[in-house]
């Protein structure tokens, strides 16, 4: 059964006040906190390793699958493999996310490898939120790896957010995009205290008329560290754009390493990267509306990461 702390985590990472309708799988401290399957969405345990297979029947439209992971046992660590097989012509939303509540002194860690097979002409929105809390000294660690394969004409939008409380994270995403397929990644990240976060996107635009847009917005506060790496390889007639925009505060450090590589005469690739503190004139403008400097700063960050 799910306790109050776990309910709170589910609300934060998955907007879940109660059990969702449709297919879901709740993983709590490595165990099964609840599962529902539907006619169109099958969820099965893997037999050879921890994790699940989510199989969505071709042509499924309008369904949302929730697969949150929560950990509130200090010292618990896990490595989970989830595969998503999304049939042709689907139009579905997948809400994943991981919340860790650590009141103890030991490290709690969730490492996950999510592999997507997006079928021909299928459309997937994948939302992933990472969050940590708890007043223990034990660190909260998440290392998500996402592997994306999009077949001809497919479309996947990945919205990945880490707002608070994760002490250390290595976020790796690898994608291969086929003919007429598109990948959009929107990352939002905030680090504070002495947290560290690295992001590493590699997108292979293999198909004719394939496209990718990788956008990252981040805020680094206090003594935290962020590293953003994005690599788009244009291997065919394709268009790719990568953009990293970071606000740096206090004693934080941010590095951005955008890389684009055109291996085809018709590959069109753009990268943009900007790091800077909050502009003084932005603070002044909001202060002339009656906000204090701290309130102005908060509004600017909230807007930036919205």
């Amino acid at each position, binding site marked *: 059964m799910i306790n109050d702390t776990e309910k709170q985590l589910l609300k934060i990472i998955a907007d879940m006040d109660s059990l969702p309708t449709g297919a879901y799988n709740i993983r709590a401290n490595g165990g099964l906190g609840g599962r529902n399957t539907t006619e169109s969405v099958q969820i099965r345990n893997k037999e050879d390793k921890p994790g699940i297979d989510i199989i969505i029947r071709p042509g499924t439209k309008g369904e949302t699958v929730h697969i949150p992971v929560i950990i509130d046992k200090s010292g618990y660590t896990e490595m989970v493999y989830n595969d998503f097989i999304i049939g042709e012509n689907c139009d579905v939303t997948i809400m994943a996310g991981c919340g860790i509540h650590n009141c103890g002194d030991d490290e709690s860690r969730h490492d996950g490898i999510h592999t997507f097979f997006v079928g021909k002409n299928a459309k997937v929105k994948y939302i992933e939120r990472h969050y940590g809390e708890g007043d223990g000294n034990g660190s909260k660690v998440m290392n998500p790896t996402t592997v994306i394969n999009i077949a001809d004409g497919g479309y996947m939008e990945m919205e990945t957010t880490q707002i608070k409380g994760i002490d250390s994270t290595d976020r790796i995403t690898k994608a291969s995009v086929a003919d007429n397929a598109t990948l959009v990644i929107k990352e939002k990240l905030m680090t504070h205290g002495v947290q560290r976060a690295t992001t590493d996107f590699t997108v292979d635009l293999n198909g004719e008329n394939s496209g990718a847009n990788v956008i990252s917005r981040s805020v680094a506060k206090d003594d935290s560290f962020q590293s953003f790496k994005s690599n788009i390889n244009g291997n065919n007639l394709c268009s790719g754009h990568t953009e990293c925009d970071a606000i740096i505060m206090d004693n934080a450090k941010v590095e951005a390493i955008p890389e684009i590589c055109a291996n085809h005469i018709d590959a069109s690739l753009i990268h943009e990267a900007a790091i800077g503190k909050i502009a003084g004139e932005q603070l002044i403008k*909001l202060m002339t509306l009656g906000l204090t400097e701290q309130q102005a700063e908060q509004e600017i960050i909230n*807007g*930036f*990461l919205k």
Partner: protein
Amino acid sequence: MLELKNISFSADTENGKKEILKNISLKFEDGFIAITGPNGGGKSTLAKIIAGIIKPTSGKILLDGEDITELSITERAQKGISFAFQQPVRFKGITVKDLISLASGKDITVAKACDYLSQVGLCARDYVDREVNSSLSGGELKRIEIATVLARGTKVSLFDEPEAGIDLWSFNNLINVFEKMHSTLGGSIIIISHQERILNIADKVAVISAGNLEAYGKKSDILPELLSASNPACSVLTDNLEGAK
């Protein structure tokens, strides 16, 4: 009432100290006051001093008799001073509705935000959810900036060249906005402007040139002399007016 007493401001430049404002004393009663004068004369500096963005080298600023010279930007805003920037600031992620809500001090409804936008001639539905970022044109930003001051509805509303960057078609709308503001907003509406049509709807006009208050009085007394171009300090102004026609 806003009152400036003996305001001076000097800034360090490559050639030593430069006096930007020299001993300016002005009383802004309720009504519509236009501040005009040649470029580089110190008008925008004066506006920033009123808003608290820069501190005067000497002199006092009084709001309803209270000395606010040492108060911060935030404190002055909370006491009732609003300021529309000459060059509005862009924000990534903050929407037009967010900005107007922040200005009004509460989470306003979409209908109310639309009301303020309509007043500045923007088709509200197209704008409320847009980000105040570089996707907006200079003219759109200027009008949103004016809408934030309308949303605040304070006793002192200060506009630094609201017409700059606005096309001729929108300028007609803008004149209507200010005419209407005159009757609805109340308090002191202070507009820094080079535009004869804005000066024409003012109750009083102040002329600032080379850091000095050259003239201050009723529009009917100031404007004829100003536009006659007999005063060399104002020839620049008339050039501007000619250029804008």
